[in-house]
């Protein structure tokens, strides 16, 4: 536990103080297994994560298991801890992390990898799994980055591939049983890898490489360890555990609202989007379930806003029923609704009025690319007409600020596509003046451009990222195309995107670079103020890593990819088919219109939005 003199001498001590309403404290002596659940970033980021809320509840629901929270200490606290030799502790009971049975780390983005290592270091836990004897906690990884865990594989004992609601308790239960029998860590890991679907133990595979550095093979070292680890999904979202009681942070967090998860997956299949592929198949919750859960969450939290969180919320088949049902009581309680992920082609006046975020004068759309040709390539399936119609609705309702999201550096992109970004923004300004009843204030159209990062398990996983030089040129070129003074232009730092690509597409050889980065004091790389591109490139150079090999190389169609050891349901054949359709500038209909045989149907699931549900996927 941190002393009061430490807490009094740092910024935002509320990050470490605990004591929140809803936290669950169990007597360590009364449980069979203790899990420290870590979000490796600042408290106010971690406490905003829905996955952590769910898994905290799902583990603590088990009588003989306790789960406590851990976050990355901010740098001022880290300095104090190192100075006073204080180890990282859990929030609930102030127990040192290294005294837990498990350290479960949710890995949400590549730029937190150095924080993951720092958390291990600050906990007094050796970084590499092979250097940890049975006295240390078993380190589990999960979250989106576990779909290509290879760059950080050496630091983890086990990864949860897929949704953790069922898998994580199964793992901990198995451990509790085996611990009673006096089994070793190795015996437990082997049993887990053999019997629990979704468990990936990186240490149980021999990895060999070809002369050119590409992967030659992943070979299980033990019988019964799966050659390919299939991801887990929860089949029925209506009966799935959901966290009705939430730990209520006192300090302001990024997401200070009810997050009502409406469905999982996405019917769209944008070809750059990893989430749209790895969370397949689409599974919906029934509106009755959601209405009950929303009411219950409001009573237990008192939050003044409900956010309907799913990948593309307007694709929910019962959206009207849900929003109507919510509005029946939210208006009276002065609770507002927010729909953070509206698609341009489904935006309507009615929907906008329901979400009536009166306070906000701005609205965001994501055309993603500047021309119809490139939008077809990425399969985003919206048109300029859709955008103008949606912007017009917003303008006629009195809004004067529109934000547009784009990417640059997309496959097949030319200058014409970049010019198209400027064109769309300027057309949106024109649309403002064309709209009868527009606000009397001048419009602002903000375009926010991020750099394309190829991600595993997407049709673009074989694509090279544009080089740094190209990305910077592209960013500048867009700026030079904008003539209207009513258009504001911001773009992401290409340097961050480049490092992200290296880490996202990496293999186990990167662990040496990450270890080196950690020893050089890297942490909080997701925060602009701590990210240092030149230092990263120096670390890669020193570790002998050819960054272009990972980020800027076009991979052969038949190349064995580092993440091929994972089976996320969607098949490689499907991804390749989609990649080829992208080159041909052909779109693919949404799952609701027509099944394109992605393969995810083989995972099953109730109420899935998939015409081939119940059958095997076309490709299997």
């Amino acid at each position, binding site marked *: 536990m941190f*002393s*009061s*003199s430490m*807490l*009094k*001498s740092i910024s935002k*001590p*509320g990050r*470490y*103080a*605990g*004591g*929140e*309403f*809803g*936290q669950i404290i169990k007597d360590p002596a009364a449980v069979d297994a203790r899990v420290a659940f870590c979000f490796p970033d600042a408290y106010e980021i971690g406490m905003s994560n829905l996955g952590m809320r769910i898994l905290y509840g799902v583990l603590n629901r088990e009588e003989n298991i306790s789960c406590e929270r851990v976050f990355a200490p901010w740098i001022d606290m880290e300095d104090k801890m190192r100075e006073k030799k204080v180890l990282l502790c859990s929030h609930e009971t102030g127990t040192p992390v290294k005294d837990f049975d498990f350290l479960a780390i949710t890995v949400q983005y590549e730029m937190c990898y150095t924080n993951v290592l720092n958390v291990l270091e600050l906990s007094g836990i050796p970084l590499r799994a092979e250097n940890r004897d049975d006295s240390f906690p078993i380190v589990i990884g999960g979250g989106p980055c576990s779909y290509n865990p290879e760059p950080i594989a050496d630091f983890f004992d086990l990864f949860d591939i897929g949704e953790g609601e069922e898998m994580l308790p199964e793992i901990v239960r198995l451990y509790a049983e085996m611990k009673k029998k006096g089994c070793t860590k190795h015996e437990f890991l082997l049993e887990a890898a053999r019997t629990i679907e979704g468990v990936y133990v990186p240490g149980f595979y021999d990895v060999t490489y070809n002369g050119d550095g590409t992967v030659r093979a992943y070979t299980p070292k033990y019988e019964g360890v799966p050659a390919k680890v299939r991801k887990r999904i929860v089949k029925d979202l209506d009966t799935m555990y959901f966290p009705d009681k939430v730990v*209520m942070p*006192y*300090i*302001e967090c990024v997401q*200070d609202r009810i997050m009502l998860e409406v469905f999982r997956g996405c019917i769209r299949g944008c070809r750059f989007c990893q989430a749209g592929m790895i969370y397949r198949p689409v599974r919906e919750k029934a509106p009755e379930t959601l209405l009950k859960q929303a009411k219950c969450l*409001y*009573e*237990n*939290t*008192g*939050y*003044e806003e409900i956010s309907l969180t799913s990948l593309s919320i307007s694709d929910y088949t019962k959206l009207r029923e849900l929003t109507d049902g919510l509005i029946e009581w939210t208006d009276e*309680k*002065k609770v507002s609704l927010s729909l953070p992920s509206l698609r341009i082609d489904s935006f309507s006046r009615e929907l906008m009025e329901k979400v009536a975020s*009166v*306070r906000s004068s701005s609205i965001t759309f994501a055309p993603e690319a500047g021309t119809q040709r490139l939008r077809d390539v990425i399969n985003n399936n919206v048109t300029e007409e859709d955008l103008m119609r949606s912007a017009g609705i917003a303008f006629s309702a009195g809004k004067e600020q529109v934000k547009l999201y784009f990417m640059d550096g997309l496959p097949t992109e030319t200058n014409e596509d970049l010019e198209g970004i400027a064109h769309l923004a300027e057309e949106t300004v024109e649309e403002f003046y064309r709209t009868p009843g527009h606000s009397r204030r001048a419009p602002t159209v903000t375009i926010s451009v991020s750099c394309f990062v190829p991600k595993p398990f997407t049709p673009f996983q074989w694509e090279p990222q544009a080089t740094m030089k190209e990305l910077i040129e592209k960013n500048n070129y867009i700026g030079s195309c904008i003539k209207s003074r009513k258009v504001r232009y911001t773009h992401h730092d290409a340097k961050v995107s480049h490092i992200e690509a290296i880490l996202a597409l990496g293999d186990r050889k990167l662990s040496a670079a990450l270890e080196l980065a950690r020893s050089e004091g890297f942490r909080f790389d997701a925060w602009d103020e701590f990210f240092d591109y030149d230092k990263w490139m120096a670390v890669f150079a020193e570790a002998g890593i050819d960054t272009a090999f990972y980020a800027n190389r076009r991979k052969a169609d038949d190349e064995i990819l580092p993440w091929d050891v994972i089976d996320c349901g969607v098949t490689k054949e499907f991804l390749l088919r989609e990649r080829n359709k992208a080159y041909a500038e052909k779109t693919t209909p949404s799952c609701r219109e027509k099944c394109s045989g992605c393969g995810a149907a083989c995972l099953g699931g109730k109420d899935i939005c998939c015409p081939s549900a119940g059958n095997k996927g076309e490709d299997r």
Partner: protein
Amino acid sequence: MTDKIEYPMLPEPRTVRLRFKKTGALQYISHLDLQRSFIRILARAELPLWFTQGFNPHPKLVFALPLAIGTESVCELADIRIERDMPCDEILKRLGTASSGGLEFTDCYVPSAKFAEITGTEYTITLELGEDDAKAFSEKAFETLTSSPIVIRKRTKSGEKEVDISGMISRLRIDRKRGNVTINAVLSAGEGNTLNPENLLDALRAATGLPDAETEYSCMRLKMLCKDGAEFR
């Protein structure tokens, strides 16, 4: 909530005063964060809150005096406004189930006095100094805090400035028990004239070098006082 009694509407919204303790982990929560959290506690308690009638309706919530981070309190006060005739003991009961350990509601009543009548706050500050430092410190502390002027640098809205705080300290008592020194004092409070325990500690730091970064100490607000010295209610 199990009971669904409909309390009758009041002809006029009613102001209700809540007394609460803010101790333990809660001492590290800032005034602003407490305000935000309070709104949610009130909502969880399902109190029949009255909302302002404007463009952006919000419940009425006024705190007596902000409490600095790192200071605990057993005597905090906040006023809320309700639109239905819910009895005070019911309000207290509901708040009890809607809040956590470090935030404990101890009383609820219809107030007769205004927060502006508060002129002082009684604090106790305990420093764990160890036998060696305690004696010298307590003597020096008494000397420092009873001298005049006591000039400290104080942060105000218009930047840092030097202030003489000697007139803002009264009823000073310093006790020493083994290695612990306890400073008990009434510090002036009210608009533009508020002295916090940290200000007092700044004066002591300047004079004695203690408390330093290693010193464990705690500050507790005990009472809010009226001009006549009686406890404000």
